[in-house]
């Protein structure tokens, strides 16, 4: 297989470009999108590469159509992705719910910008954390990953595809304008070095009869893609194990929704990753995610130099959320600080996790600039 970009070596590229290349290496062969700052470069790279690798890149009429198209593509057997920013992400929410309900593996990149509304198109923000987790209606769960470097944008994109396929779920790669437009050195591995996960297909006719059941006991049913003769019916209505609508049956609804949520909750250990830095003997913990964690690393160094036993917990997976881990952390430290580029979205989750075992303080910043390390240090030392 020939790739339209160098593989097996490093390249100096933007976050958006890294996401596009990673998607192609992860096996993505269908991209549908609608231009929006600061995510457009993902689309532009996909438009350039996709025809060359026999994939599809298509500009749809809006974001609603874009996510609809990738869900259709996924049911036809493709690994599929779309990318957008806050306003477009809002438009996609209904179909994100549809993808959750129909257990369709797709990847949605949300390059956050300042909001609400059209807000600050070119500036960075972390204002979509709650939207990514809770944007669609009804009881649901999905996976949200958050990179902090261009290399992580690359690595997490591959991981997003693998998790989507493994758990038959939409995965949101939640990044921001700062990472999207920043150029950094990225190692692009050889395709044979990359671990690729493909969706579980039905082994036989019998398995294909239960596209929404739990025949393997792991909560993830095999996915009978269209055109294989299985005659699968897929609906966003509450459906039984065979996919038949059962909209007024409370038991069927509860069984379906609980399985969809449990298949992620029960596999938290596999889905959730984080990086701990100087946390073993820490008395002060900084919990953060995305671009802000880079300032936080520096802040921890400065604090240690000043004799403050500080440590950092950088969350790579924002959802599912490991509330227990935060509680354990809260039991070990005196105080937790949550620096984030919004008025307190991750803070709510951390505070709930801490469960009163330690004080949790928000270090908020909005307007488009990332916290400087000193802004974090000054808040910690008072």
């Amino acid at each position: 297989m020939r790739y339209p970009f160098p593989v097996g070596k490093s390249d100096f590229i933007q976050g958006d470009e890294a996401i596009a290349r990673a998607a192609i290496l992860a096996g993505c062969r269908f991209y549908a999108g609608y231009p929006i700052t600061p995510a457009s470069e993902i689309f532009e790279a996909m438009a350039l590469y996709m025809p060359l690798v026999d994939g599809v890149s298509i500009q749809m009429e809006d974001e609603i159509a874009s996510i609809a198209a990738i869900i259709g593509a996924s049911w036809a057997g493709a690994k599929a992705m779309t990318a957008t920013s806050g306003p477009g992400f809002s438009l996609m929410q209904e179909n994100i719910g549809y993808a959750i309900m129909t257990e369709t593996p797709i990847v949605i990149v949300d390059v956050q910008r300042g909001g609400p509304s059209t807000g600050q198109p070119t500036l960075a923000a972390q204002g979509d954390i709650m939207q990514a987790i809770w944007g669609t209606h009804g009881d649901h769960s999905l996976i949200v990953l958050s990179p902090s470097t261009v290399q992580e944008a690359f690595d997490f994109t591959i991981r997003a595809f693998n998790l989507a396929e493994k758990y038959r779920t939409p995965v949101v790669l939640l990044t921001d304008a700062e990472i999207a437009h920043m150029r950094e050195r990225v190692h692009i591995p050889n395709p044979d070095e990359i671990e690729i996960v493909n969706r579980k297909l039905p082994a036989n006719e019998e398995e294909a009869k239960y596209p929404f059941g739990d025949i393997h006991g792991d909560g993830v049913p095999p996915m009978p893609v269209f055109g294989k003769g299985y005659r699968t019916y897929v609906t966003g209505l509450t459906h039984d194990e065979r996919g038949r609508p059962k909209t007024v049956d409370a038991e069927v609804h509860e069984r379906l929704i609980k399985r969809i949520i449990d298949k992620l909750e029960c596999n938290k250990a596999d889905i959730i990753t984080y990086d701990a830095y100087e946390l073993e003997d820490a008395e002060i913990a900084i919990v953060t995610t995305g671009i802000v964690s880079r300032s936080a690393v520096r802040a921890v160094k400065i604090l240690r130099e000043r004799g403050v036993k500080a440590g950092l917990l950088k969350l790579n997976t924002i959802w599912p959320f490991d509330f227990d881990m935060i509680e354990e952390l809260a039991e070990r430290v005196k105080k937790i600080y949550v620096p984030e580029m919004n008025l307190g979205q991750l803070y709510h989750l951390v505070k709930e996790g801490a469960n009163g075992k330690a004080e949790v303080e928000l270090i908020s910043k909005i307007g488009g600039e990332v916290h400087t390390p000193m802004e974090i240090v000054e808040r910690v030392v008072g």
Partner: protein
Amino acid sequence: MYLKPAYEIREKYLRKDMLPTIFCPGCGIGSALQYTLRAIDDLGLNQDEIVWVSGIGCSSRVPGFVNFDGLHTTHGRALAFATGIKLTNPDLKIIAFMGDGDAAAIGGNHFIHAIRRNLDVTVILINNFTYGMTGGQVAPTALKGLKGTTAPYGQFENPFDIADLAVSAGANYVARWSVFNYLQGINSIKKALQKEGFSLVEFLSPCPISFGRRNRMKTSPELLRWYQKITVPLAKAKKMPPEELEGKIVIGEFADRDRPGLVREYEAYKKRAKKMMGWEE
């Protein structure tokens, strides 16, 4: 034309465990569905190579009743989903079963853009001038003066002529009939299914319960008589002055052309890309 007994069609194509359908007495969706299945049967198309897609509403429940791969999606978005399916697997033939609200209101943008792209899909459009499933609200196809729960004093807006819209947007095949024109209906669906690119067969379809009741036509036969009054065959309409056509609906075949479909266009685009990059001669 030889018409097979209906039970043979039913046996072959319907999901028995999903019956009875949700449709009200006198509803026309079953007829349009029967014509579609007869067209598939007559053409000898492979059941495993057809995917049915739909949005929301009464007509959208059709993919659930037929024994094919099917995607019952969100309101108005059927054609956007279909775009992903078709471009991923061009071997699949796609039938989109849509309602008039689905296609012309909430999905209006998807509709015109799918036609503009000449997406390879056959749309069977149920036009009953109303939102049947949600209880008879007025639709963008409703002729002036028709009543709906959200226009209790009679529609004051101008209606969309869906077939006209499809012709202007560039569809390869466009026809409109009432569900009582069964031979023309079946023949048109057969033509549509064999077309590359976008094909549309629109059916004026009775909805006595949600629509008819509010417009003094409580039964299907009453709606049939009304269709007879308001429909004008295309050949006749061409000779009529515009003022006589006011409030009438023209039926017939409006477009039959062979512009390249989206699949073929994208295949050519891929070749062009590889050539421009020097990957291929």
